[in-house]
């Protein structure tokens, strides 16, 4: 816990780290506290107030069915950020496992795993997503799983590269000489020393995942009603983009701000967790 506090205070020192932290914390808060924070029921239709522009009672206006957009965005944060976090988590687990195995075992395992990575990277990711999500009935879970399963390869590459460097360190040699098992060495000596770059790539990946999910939902392939992600909400503004501009603009704003938040946080984490800068400070 002490380490966590230290990390936050280090992030707080740079402007971009501060903005990233604030934005990410804000969106997490909105997603977690949606029932308490949203002014209206997000699914309650009010046909009298159909498509009304932003006003004091409805800050971001209402949609075609008279639902309050701010409330829908706050509940949408649960879906969008949930899918972003969930898929990134899956990608980190898969990517770290593959990267660690390939980099630590080297040899044939490495060759086979990395060729699979190359092959998957060659696939048009978005097209497969459309295909898979379009075939099934896309629940939140399915979308997150498919996104995660198709995005772990970059993480695997980063982890493998780092593992190869760490594997040659003398402390790994010393652990081998102590007779520790390869599994023990991989998990306790190698993995903790690549965790910094895993955290960084994961944070950056969350933003990408949110964007891809939004694009899917915008096209109507993502989460289905009654669930709504920011992409679904944005989709509604498509029907009359000039007449109901506030729908797309407010949903777009939510997507952009969350992206900026996660990317700034990821970049600042990279600076803070880089062992070279850590050494320079000590």
């Amino acid at each position: 816990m002490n380490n966590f506090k230290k990390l936050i205070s280090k992030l707080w020192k740079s402007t971009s780290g501060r903005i990233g932290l604030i934005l990410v914390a804000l969106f997490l808060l909105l997603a977690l506290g949606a029932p308490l924070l949203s002014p209206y029921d997000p699914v309650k239709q009010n046909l009298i107030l159909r498509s009304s522009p932003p006003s004091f009672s409805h800050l971001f206006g209402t949609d075609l069915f008279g639902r309050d957009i701010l409330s829908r965005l706050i509940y949408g944060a649960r879906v969008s950020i949930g899918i972003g976090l969930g898929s990134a988590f899956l990608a980190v687990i898969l990517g770290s496992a593959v990267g660690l195995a390939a980099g630590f075992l080297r040899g044939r395992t490495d060759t086979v795993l990395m060729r699979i990575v190359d092959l998957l990277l060659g696939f048009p990711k978005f097209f497969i997503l459309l295909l898979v999500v379009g075939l099934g009935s896309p629940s939140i879970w399915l979308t997150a799983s498919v996104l995660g399963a198709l995005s772990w390869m970059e993480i695997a590459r980063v982890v493998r590269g780092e593992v190869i460097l760490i594997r040659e360190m003398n402390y790994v040699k010393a652990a081998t000489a102590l007779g520790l098992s390869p599994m023990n060495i991989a998990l306790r000596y190698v993995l903790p020393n690549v965790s910094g770059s895993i955290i960084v790539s994961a944070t950056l990946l969350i933003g990408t995942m949110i964007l891809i999910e939004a694009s899917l939902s915008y096209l109507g392939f993502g989460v289905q009603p009654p669930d709504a992600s920011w992409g679904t909400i944005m989709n509604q503004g498509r029907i009359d983009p000039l007449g109901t501009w506030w729908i797309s603009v407010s949903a777009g704003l939510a997507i952009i701000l969350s992206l900026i938040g996660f990317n700034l946080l990821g970049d600042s984490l990279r600076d803070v967790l880089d062992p070279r800068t850590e050494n320079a400070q000590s």
Partner: protein
Amino acid sequence: MLDSEKLILRIEELSISYQSSGSGFWGNNKEIVAVNEVSLSVGRGETFAIVGESGSGKTSIAMSILGFVKPAAGTIEFNDLNLFSLDSKQLRETRRLIQPVFQDANSALNPRMTVETILGDGIAISDENEKREKTISLLKSVGLSPDFLKKYPHQLSGGQKQRLCIARALAPEPELIILDEPVSAQDLSIQAHILRLLSEIKKTKNITYLLISHDLNVVRILADRVAVMRSGIIVEESSCEKFFSDPTHPYSQELLENSGLIQRA
């Protein structure tokens, strides 16, 4: 000659080579011979030094004894066991009896582990209390106080880190410690402390040192016997006294002259 029953390590006709990519873009892989049919024997309880310049192959020998480099040919026998014919379980048990101390203590300590975990990993005791006692006694044996248990490597000074590395090497109660340039990266005052510590440890425990160094001052202080390596070959092997008073090979004489230990004839 040494009594063969008292041998701890016997290396016979050991050859080690590396693949090196050629200079051109598609350059042929050249084979670089680092160690060329080297034979040597180390007696139990002695300090045997391999001296030579960087690139002479001395570190390659150390790495192959530790099992990190596969030799192209030859055998290494430890306690009359051929290290290359052991199954993986035997190998892991035997390995615990051969421990390294590296030159750069910074890269030899896991930055994410506390001193207690670093040492605990080398102790084969499952009882937590006994393990802790053993850890503390290890720290004391290298002149570090128990206050260090919860510290991380970056909170230690250079000399303290090297002491910790020595404590870790002692943890599995080894019979042979390979000292790969153990003090070269340190200030003289720290070198003095570490050298004193190493010689004290040897007095109290029945340990054999294989010392790898280019620093003849350090070799003269610690070693009983000396082998001089040049381009993968041992050019001279003799007792420490004879080597420093009456070196026979011209290359040995050159090394001693360059270190200011003998005057040019």
